[in-house]
């Protein structure tokens, strides 16, 4: 396959960026999108140019490190992560636009790499449970109803990649935050912090400069893990419940 790539190049956080055009040849349809970028980078290095910086780690769709907005879609045209997107999703001769996640809370570090530590701080604000350290407790000591376990698992699938923020017209982190809140709030292990979790995580989300939710639904369409839009409804419900309860104490 022969492709024309238009890639966002930005030297560092303070520099102005722009789209640069590259031609790549000899791309196999079985390559992943990242392998295609590796091919481009090998050529750039041989030519003595600066390779394109992009985030990646496990390359098997479970770590949440890879990003990239491809032709206007977070993680590209398939509902998966960029590392699991294969070149067979494109046609020979295509022009492909590759851009970084765009949000005030995700500043560009270099080229296609953005700083997603705002997500870490949202997790620090409440995305944990209080558990005693030491020997692992008996697994069946705390029964969890099957529907609750399924609900928690559906939300626990979030890998924190940030595609929801990238796709949202408001740069909102509601889907990310809600998946974390719902995951822990439904489980007995998460019960002690049920109220503080949602209040603190939403407050941190606001403080990081993410936008609000206008229920455009683009986050859920972009999510490679299929976190449903209703997750946000669930968090709104938890937030209202916690606010009412906090007011009484």
């Amino acid at each position, binding site marked *: 396959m022969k492709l024309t790539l238009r890639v966002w190049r930005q030297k560092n956080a303070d520099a102005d960026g722009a789209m640069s055009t590259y031609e790549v040849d000899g791309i196999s349809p079985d390559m992943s999108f990242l392998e295609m970028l590796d091919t481009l980078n090998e050529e750039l290095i041989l030519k003595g140019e600066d390779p394109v910086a992009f985030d990646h780690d496990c390359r098997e769709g479970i770590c949440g490190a890879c990003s990239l907005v491809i032709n*206007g879609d977070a993680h590209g045209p398939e509902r998966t992560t960029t590392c699991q997107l294969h070149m067979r999703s494109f046609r020979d001769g295509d022009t492909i636009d590759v851009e970084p996640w765009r949000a005030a809370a995700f500043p560009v570090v270099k080229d296609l790499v953005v700083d997603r530590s705002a997500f870490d701080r949202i997790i620090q604000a409440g995305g944990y449970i209080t558990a005693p350290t030491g020997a692992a407790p008996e697994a069946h000591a705390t029964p969890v109803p099957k529907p609750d376990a399924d609900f928690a698992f559906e939300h626990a699938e979030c890998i924190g990649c940030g595609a929801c923020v990238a796709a949202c017209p*408001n740069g909102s982190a509601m889907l990310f935050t809600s998946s974390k809140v719902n995951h822990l709030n439904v489980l007995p292990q998460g019960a002690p912090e049920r109220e503080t979790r949602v209040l603190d995580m939403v407050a941190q989300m606001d403080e990081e400069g993410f*936008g609000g939710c206008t*229920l455009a639904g683009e986050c859920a369409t972009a999510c490679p893990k299929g976190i449903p839009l209703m997750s946000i409804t669930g968090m709104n419900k938890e937030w209202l419940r916690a606010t009412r309860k906090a007011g009484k104490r």
Partner: protein
Amino acid sequence: MALATRTDRRPSFARTVWDSSVGKKTVMAVSGLIMLLYLVVHMLGNLKIFFGAAEFDGYAHWLRTLGEPFLHHEWALWIVRVVLVVAVVAHAVAAYQLSRRDIKARPSKYVHKKARTSYATRTMRWGGIILALFIVWHVLDLTTGTVHPDFQAGHPYQNVIDTFSTWYGNVIYIVAVLAVGLHVRHGFWSAAQTLGAGSRTRDRALKITANALALVLTVGFVSVPVAVMTGVVS
């Protein structure tokens, strides 16, 4: 010395709600639902125009005597007006502040653009501004009569016919009503999600209700200028 057991005093309920993006959306949802309820009642009242001047003017007069003798003359109307003004102001201020936050959160646009959200979703902000301007004109035109030539207090039937006998009256009104329809279509469903009332099983019913409300309100409101233009009401 006794140590204080409570160290983290959380801010008041009102402060928490107003300072949070989620809470401010709640304010928008509640004020929006109040205005929606009013619109349904308003639309049903408007339809009395099809039953003659006596019935329509009589209804307008009854609105002023509503609640008597418990309430003084026009008090019920003024209570409704105050609630509505509070709702409109709360809705608009929250919308302005949330929009500022949203625009700030996405300072640089994508080079490769894709518009995927529905028309109703994309027009919420401009639609809201159009509606705010319309409300001002509408009150000045048919409540106070400030911008209405030959306004006759107590004769709303004639005033309505006067307004819809001008081309600009019809254009302003019909554009605003279409904006209401689009606004309600996305707004009602969104309010349900913001208040945590949505669920996977209820989603279809909520979307159908939103569409039905939008359609009924649009058709109901538009029927009046159309009837005047076609001579059904004269």
